[in-house]
């Protein structure tokens, strides 16, 4: 046996054990994400520090503005004015969307009765309805709630409906073969099988609800984070404009990610099923 070769039939060379940065980074994507954001802020600071404050601003100025707005209490107030109608509107959209989606998914009569309206409302850019909604429901919290709910409800309806329609006949046959009642088939087979779809609908609804909230505040231009954006932009307070924009972005990412987390947890069976077949 050769001493130099060191390989026998029982051992296999499984590749280098040497540390590789590329492999390590690939398996730690958050490191790159954080680094990318940090570099972005440094570059922004460096490039924009001498610009005209009417047109451009830079991170430390935005931070200072945020601090000032917090001390004044203006920011907290706007956040409340936005978050209350946002949460209520989103909750209405989720509950109402699931119930409507179930209703049209279960009853052909309701489906054919309602789907012209749902399709028409889906096709019209919902922003086009905002002036009308404001006319009917007012500029304040109620109006915002209606706008948020009416924009965010559609993906929930459509996804719940598709989830219910997509349940495989073979799953329902299991229920029938074991003498399940129609109600049991619905609650124990159809509904749980639709959960991944419904969660995806909710995730989309969160994004749309944020758009609805800010847009409605643009129209009313009095309250909330959207109201602050319009106010500061009209006064050319560019550093301040960025504060509500960044807060909205952070909120959006945080909310969407938390829904995505729940979604992944509830849909684990579906993902591994997909990988299998």
């Amino acid at each position, binding site marked *: 046996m050769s001493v130099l070769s060191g390989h026998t039939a029982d051992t296999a060379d499984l590749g280098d054990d040497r540390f590789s940065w590329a492999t390590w980074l690939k398996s730690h994507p958050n490191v790159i994400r954080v680094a990318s954001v940090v570099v972005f802020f440094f570059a922004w600071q460096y490039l924009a520090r001498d610009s005209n404050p009417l047109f451009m601003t830079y991170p430390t100025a935005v931070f200072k503005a945020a601090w000032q707005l917090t001390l004044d209490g203006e920011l907290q107030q706007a956040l409340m004015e936005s978050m209350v109608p946002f949460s209520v509107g989103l909750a209405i959209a989720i509950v109402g969307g699931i119930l409507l989606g179930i209703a049209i998914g279960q009853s052909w009569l309701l489906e054919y009765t309602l789907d012209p309206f749902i399709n028409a409302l889906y096709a019209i850019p919902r922003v086009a309805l905002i002036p009308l909604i404001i006319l009917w429901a007012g500029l304040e919290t109620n109006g915002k709630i209606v706008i948020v709910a009416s924009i965010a409800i559609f993906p929930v309806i459509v996804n719940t409906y598709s989830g219910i329609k997509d349940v495989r006949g*073979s*799953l329902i*046959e*299991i*229920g*029938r*073969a*074991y*003498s*399940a*009642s129609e109600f*049991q088939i619905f609650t*124990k*087979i159809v509904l*749980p*099988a639709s*959960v991944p779809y419904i969660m995806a609908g909710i995730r989309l609804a969160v994004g749309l609800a944020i758009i609805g909230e800010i847009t409605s505040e643009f129209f009313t231009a009095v309250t909330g984070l959207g109201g602050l954006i319009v106010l500061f932009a009209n006064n050319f307070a560019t550093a301040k404009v960025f504060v509500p924009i960044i807060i909205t972005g952070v909120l959006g990412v945080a909310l969407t990610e938390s829904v995505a987390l729940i979604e992944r947890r509830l849909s*684990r*069976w*579906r993902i*591994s*099923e997909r990988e*299998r077949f």
Partner: protein
Amino acid sequence: MLKVSRVYKFFKARDSSERGVRAMKVLDDISLDVGRGEFISLLGASGCGKTTLLRIMAGLLRPDRGSVHVNEQPVQAPRRDVCMVFQNFGLLPWRSVLSNAAFPLELDGVNRGKRESIAAEYLGLVGLSGFERHFPHELSGGMQQRVGIARALVRKPLILLMDEPFAALDAQTREKLQEDFLAIWNQLKTTVVFVTHAIDEALVLSDRIVVLSSRPGRVDRVIDSPVSQYRIGGDVRARLEFAEQAHDIRELLRSERTA
């Protein structure tokens, strides 16, 4: 016990010559008597209507003529004491193994503690103790079908209807499951109607084999398995009678295919 009397079933099929639909005969005058504790196989090529016949026995389909009786009662809808094992296992993927096995009892309104202890008992019987908290996608096909069998047994059924339950498995797993299932059947003595297209599977498992002809499905011959008394704990495939009978059935199915 289970009595199938003069059952006919037609399906709608598109006519090739004319525009429109015509009735295609799928089952042609099927009569069958299954005794208590008997293991009977329905053997035939794919498309011979054996699964349709099983679904009629299960009450999932209504025959167009004729009737099915269980213990002298006509079958109109699925019965709680006639349980089904599916070809593709038919587990609910979002439920754990234990909750899948307990599913029929859950439908019956049995409380959680009781149904889970019964389910765990039958999971033990099929050799799945320790897998109660797993999910179907974490199990191999053979293990998934073991869950399917446990689920069918939790109601202590009078009759077990099995629709090609081992057809989706690889050969080794299939033989292992046949052997284990025979041992379970020998212990419980449940009446079994087993649909299969595999001659050796029918011979290894059953007391009687009902050979169905194709299009329309018709009872071609009913064969008493020559090896049924040796099937528990022995390798019946090694016996001469097994080979002879398998040969006869193969010839029978072949002649009928060319006809």
